[in-house]
């Protein structure tokens, strides 16, 4: 598999700090700006013979790269630094103790403490009033309980820190302990400080001790009471791009059992993976500092298998930075259709926008803004007088863009073809007609416009 460099043009929504320096990096299997340190062996698949890092340090064991399992080499070209994200967590002294299965869906949550075993906590980020962001701000999450399951519904989660650690020295507690992160739709987790997931237990061999975005069904088979390696299915069935994890502090995913991770991970500090040989990582990971594979304790067993999932990277597009392109599918039986990533834009429309405006990040941003506004206005056309400002803002943003780029007067984005994509059923057309009918007879002013009318600061986009 070829190494892949992906240009990450601007990164994300208004929530993120953007710089004008283009970033040319995305992890190819595993990468680090400092060094990748193998404390024991690992099987690095699909990466060729080279890893994106200036230094590879190894101890006695050796990581093997590629189909022929040769010794890994560092690239001559060190990876660039990543874009910095701004994490808007909720810093507070309040603590919410969770002692039963809970669904959390407010826009802001305090520190969360899990103090009972076998709980399921569901985070459900809500769209903000403008319909622009689906975001949930959370304080610190601490979890010293057993067998917690975290379900994240599609959206962005800004968290101060995560510490899930059962290393209490209580052996009874350490048995058969696991933690699960489940993504329902496309999820992005921004952690401001550390992200520690440590399950020092010996896990039940039929399921990993740490499971991040893995299928719920068991895919590790037993034969005569044990799990033969050849029956183990390392390929993930979950799409790694469904769960993006970005951490500002140290990140540790360590266990004396197995970890199974399907995710794309960015770390601005060190990242450590440590697990038993059947552990597997599928997706991509990049650390600004050292990336450790395997701990330096007395164990010298292989750490597991790391696979690069190129398709997931291909599906990322940079309109909102690291957003994932939804399937090109439309449920025409309803006015709103399907919005699998819950970002306020119908899946087929989002797909269309990315395809049509693939050469311009600014136009993608504006088209997305328009599409979000359209979803809102056709949801409640009778509220047109309240919602029409959203459409005006996208038009003003477009004119700001036109002036900025000296586009011809007749150039427009919300044209007949785009309208036909948005209003592709009779019901959707009639809803749009109704919106116009409510506005008919009214007089509206126009005003000066600026980049403030754009949901995403298009001045900071590259093209």
């Amino acid at each position, binding site marked *: 598999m070829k190494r892949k460099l992906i240009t990450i043009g601007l990164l994300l929504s208004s929530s993120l700090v953007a710089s004008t320096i283009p970033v040319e990096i995305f992890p190819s299997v595993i990468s680090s700006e400092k060094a990748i340190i193998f404390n024991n062996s690992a099987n690095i698949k699909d990466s060729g013979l080279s890893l994106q890092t200036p230094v590879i340090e190894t101890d006695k064991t050796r990581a093997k790269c590629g189909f022929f399992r040769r010794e890994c080499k560092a690239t001559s070209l060190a990876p660039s630094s990543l874009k910095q994200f701004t994490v808007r967590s909720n810093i507070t002294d309040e603590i919410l103790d969770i002692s039963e299965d809970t669904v959390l869906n407010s826009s802001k949550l305090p520190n969360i403490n899990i103090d009972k075993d076998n709980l399921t906590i569901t985070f459900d980020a809500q769209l903000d009033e403008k319909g622009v962001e689906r975001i949930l701000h959370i304080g610190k999450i601490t979890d010293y309980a057993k067998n917690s399951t975290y379900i994240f519904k599609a959206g962005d989660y800004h968290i101060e820190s995560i510490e899930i650690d059962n290393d209490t020295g209580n052996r009874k507690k350490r048995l058969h302990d696991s933690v699960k992160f489940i993504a329902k739709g496309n999820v992005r987790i921004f952690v401001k400080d550390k992200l520690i997931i440590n399950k020092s237990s010996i896990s039940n061999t039929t399921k990993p001790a740490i499971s991040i975005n893995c299928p719920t069904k068991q895919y590790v088979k037993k034969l005569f009471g044990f799990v033969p390696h050849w029956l183990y299915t390392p390929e993930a069935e979950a799409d790694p791009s469904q769960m993006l994890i970005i951490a500002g502090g140290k990140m540790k995913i360590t266990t004396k059992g197995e970890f199974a991770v399907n995710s794309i991970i960015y770390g601005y500090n060190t990242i450590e993976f440590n697990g038993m040989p059947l552990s597997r990582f599928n997706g991509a990971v990049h650390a600004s500092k050292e990336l450790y594979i395997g701990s330096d304790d007395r164990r010298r067993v292989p750490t597991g298998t790391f696979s690069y999932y190129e398709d997931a990277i291909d599906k990322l597009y940079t309109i909102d930075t690291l957003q994932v392109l939804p399937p090109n599918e439309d449920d025409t039986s309803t006015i709103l259709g399907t919005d699998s990533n819950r970002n306020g834009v119908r899946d087929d429309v989002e797909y269309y926008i990315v395809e049509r405006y693939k050469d311009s990040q600014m136009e993608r941003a504006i088209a997305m803004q328009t599409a979000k506004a359209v979803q809102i206005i056709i949801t409640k056309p009778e509220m047109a007088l309240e919602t029409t400002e959203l459409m005006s803002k996208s038009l003003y943003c477009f004119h700001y863009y036109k002036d900025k780029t000296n586009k011809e*007067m007749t150039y427009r984005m919300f044209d007949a073809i785009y309208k036909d*994509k948005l209003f592709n059923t009779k019901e959707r057309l009639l809803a749009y007609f109704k*919106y116009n009918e409510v*506005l008919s*007879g*009214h*007089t509206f*002013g126009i005003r000066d416009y600026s980049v403030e009318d754009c949901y995403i600061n298009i001045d900071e986009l590259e093209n």
Partner: protein
Amino acid sequence: MKVIYTFILTLIFSSSLFSSYNEYKTDLYFVNGVWNDKGDAENNLIELTKNLPLELKKSFNSFDFSHNWSMGVMTDLLETFYQLKQNGQISDIGFYYALYVALGTVSVTDSLYLLSGKLFGDIIALEDTIEANILEMLNKYNSKSYNKGHRVLLVAHSQGNIYANAVYERLSWKKNYTKVVAIGSPANNVAGNGEHITLTSDGVIKYVVGSMNGNVAGSGHTFVDAYLANEASKNAILLAVENGKNSLKTTSSQWDILNNNKNVIDCNERLVDITHKHFAYGDKHGVYPFNENGKRYDLGSTIVMASDGGTSKLNSWTDKDEKTECYKLSGTDEIIEKKAIDEECPSGGVLFQLASWEILRKYGSTNNTPFCRAYHSQQVCAIVVNRSCYCCGSTFISFPYQEAKPQIYSFSIQKSEELKEVVNIDSNETCTKESNIL
């Protein structure tokens, strides 16, 4: 009921109507066609304003658009579209693409002929469907423009012209303050003899029987893609807008000055009353007549009749001639003058004014003829002109207000160290002299 209605109207008029009044302002309204969604109409106006020369653009007070949308027409069109699609006469294109093709942005194809025919038919039949919109537009123009003395320029495109003409016909006296510019109009005239611009091969208008002939070479019908994109029609539109603006500029004031007291020596007496020429309840008092031939506008709570551009009324300024000047209007440098009275002062005397004449009058003149005298060197040197009392000297004198019974008020007149006199004013509002008191 009529009384109540009139009362409510009066209330509305007197409370909101004349706030931020300015007869020099002109508001531009864009009136769009019936198939334009709100975004299209908004985009049309934005593009129009972008193309206006900067000076012309700045000369307008505001830019608004009146959104006209006919649910009936559009749902009919939609039905026709789906019918054609079902019959296989339109394939693989969406409604909006078909609509814009039918509008003549590109040539009308056979498959879209029925749709375009339906569209044109609806244009002609539109007059029955717009009553509600016309009333809404009238209300908006009244509250936002006419009630504030603003002039109105309507720039109408396509069926927007039918709305513009209908609105104009209901304006009565406001017609004098309104102009219409017609673009791609299906109507057979432009209200108020306004200018019209129609492309010779306008894909829609050429099929409308009775419409005005094209007068600018070009094709297409949509406002931006056809009329503004075509250099000749764009220039014609901009010129028509400028002409309309200039024509409105020549209109006279809607207000008459009732009493212009030019021959008074009290500045307070120079303020005038004005009355609206067309509206019975519109009298205004205490207006500053900086320019009798000017127009009315408000500077906060101060109402002036003046040339355009005044920014604030000044009571004092450098090089003010206190004898003849009362107020100045910064921005226009227009001055309200009063009658000079130097000639009535005896030789050697200096006139000064006794303020607060109202106090004296309050204490009951028997015949409403205020009278005051002050003596100097055995001669009457003070005179009474209107309700102001002027005496010789250099000291400004004011009477204290007292609620008590009328009594003798004493005040001193001091011209120099040598001359000290006291003048008493009794309840009969006469001024008497008591010598040698001070």
